[in-house]
């Protein structure tokens, strides 16, 4: 007897609205599908109506946690279109903030993994230590999560020597804690029992389904945009692409923990070699890039993020396309939910762990949709009108 078990759109494992449609026999999953149609926000359409400068702040809100990746990607695209030269100091600072964002994203992910398997102590401690990164972010950029730091032509604020020193010393303290979590991932029996061999995605499947980010790297695919397509100063900063071959959730956790450690070193390197100069090129408020198109790719904490922009010479883009890493990993997720490893089936208890392991972020684009039942017409209403109750 198989029963249909819908997980979501409201479920404690994930605050975002997404539905996993599972077919379950006893404790085993026999079939799976995913439905993400609950939260489409139409950001791509709205971006066509905003100027290039305004669009940056909307692109930032595509995803709260990886907002730095989105603004980096957006800014690079517009800078390439408009031919803006970014000062080198700004590139260093972009890298610093991007890696800080990666750190807090990965630590958030670790705590969520702990939460999913009911390990609340690790959840609390990882959240506690993540605060250190957020405090740094606030001091550098002015915002704890939404940074509004990258702008077209550079970054907004400078980092002086005292702050740079503070960042380095805080991260040194954090490093010890992160190493503690790494030890925990290696030693804690239950943590390992719940994550090893769970969410199996073979290397060949990871390539076939074009998985990105830690999901791909834990399956032995050494794909990291920072290494393949250096977009800031990644060709100067030494770092390792972390690859594990375990193909399971445990590997994904290890990839992320190791990346946090790599990030600390990258930030230190960039801050110690901060070149002198401006942090922002002069850019007019109304940018009118020449007609053309551009593709920018950024390694967001969740994986490869790709933005495509098309300009027709006006102050607004003709088309702005965003492909978020979660979308790229969705196909891999369905595959992981459906097939276990060899003779080991996927259990219901594994589903939240597998789902969490891709670090899902179902947000895509923001408009409120109102449907007028009486007239049967569809009218989209901007947030501003809804707020005022019109």
């Amino acid at each position, binding site marked *: 007897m198989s029963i249909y078990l819908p997980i979501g759109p409201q479920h404690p494992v994930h605050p975002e609205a997404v539905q996993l449609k599972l077919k379950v026999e006893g404790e085993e999953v026999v079939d799976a599908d995913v*439905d*993400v*149609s*609950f939260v*489409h926000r*139409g950001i*791509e*359409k*709205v971006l066509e*109506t905003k100027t290039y400068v305004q669009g940056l702040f909307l692109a930032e809100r595509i995803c709260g946690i990886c907002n730095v990746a989105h603004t980096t990607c957006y800014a690079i695209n517009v800078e*390439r279109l408009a031919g803006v030269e970014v000062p080198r100091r700004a590139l260093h600072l972009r890298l610093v903030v991007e890696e800080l964002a990666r750190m807090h994203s990965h630590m958030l992910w670790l705590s969520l993994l702990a939460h999913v398997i009911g390990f609340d102590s690790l959840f609390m401690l990882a959240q506690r230590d993540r605060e250190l990164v957020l405090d740094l972010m606030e001091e550098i950029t002015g915002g704890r999560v939404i940074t509004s730091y990258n702008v077209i032509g550079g970054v907004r604020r400078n980092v002086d020597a005292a702050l740079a020193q503070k960042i380095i010393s805080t991260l040194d303290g954090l490093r010890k804690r992160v190493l503690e979590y790494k030890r925990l991932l290696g030693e804690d029996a239950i943590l390992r029992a719940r994550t090893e061999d769970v969410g199996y995605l073979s*290397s*060949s499947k990871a*390539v*076939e*389904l*074009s998985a990105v980010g830690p999901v791909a790297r834990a*399956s*032995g*695919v*050494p*794909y990291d945009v920072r290494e*393949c*397509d250096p977009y800031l100063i990644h060709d100067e900063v030494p770092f390792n692409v972390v690859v594990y071959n375990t193909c399971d959730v445990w590997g994904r956790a290890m990839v992320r923990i190791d990346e946090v450690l790599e990030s600390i070193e990258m930030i230190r390197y960039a801050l110690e070699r901060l070149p002198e100069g401006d942090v922002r090129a002069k850019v007019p408020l109304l940018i009118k890039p020449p007609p*053309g*198109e*551009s*593709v920018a*790719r950024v390694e967001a904490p969740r994986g*490869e993020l*790709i933005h*495509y922009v*098309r300009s027709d010479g006006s102050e607004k883009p*003709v*088309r702005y*396309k965003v*492909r978020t890493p979660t*979308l*790229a990993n*969705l*196909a891999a997720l369905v595959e992981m939910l459906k097939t276990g490893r060899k003779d080991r089936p996927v259990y219901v208890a594994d589903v939240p762990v597998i789902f969490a392991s891709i670090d899902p972020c179902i947000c*895509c684009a923001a*408009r409120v*949709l109102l*449907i007028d039942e009486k007239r049967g017409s*569809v*009218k*989209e*209403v*901007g947030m*501003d*009108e809804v707020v005022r109750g019109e």
Partner: protein
Amino acid sequence: MSGIEEPVSEEEVLQRLKEALGEALLDARIAGKRRVFVTVDREHYRTAVVALKEMGFDFLSAVTGVDAGDRFEVIAHVGRRVSVAVKALVPKDDARIASIVDVYPAAFFYEREAWEMLGIHFEGHPKLERTFLPESWPPGVYPLRKEYRQGSERG
């Protein structure tokens, strides 16, 4: 699986695409570091993508649909080191193009998105169904088309 076995030089990619497609290649250019843009007509879109796959590109970044005013464009972004954008031109009154899901299974969700947002029909796609828009969305209304206007668009 070790390393990434893809062509690393833009010129090489361009050269080999020219060999594979010949006259069908309407436009081809290198746009900056690690960026190659090629344009084909819709009959040769699949051929170009297959040629890339045979060249060693095993990674598909995204499939973008664009409403370019008088026509649609479907762009497949392929490649890890060199990002190759294969652009196919699709007439508006006959918005159909061959699916590449069998070449790159990752195109599954991307083509569904382009179909939903722009109404471009991908022939051969195994499951062209609603994914992103709500169930109550009226069929035949494609929000990313230029003629679709928003209620509160500001000047």
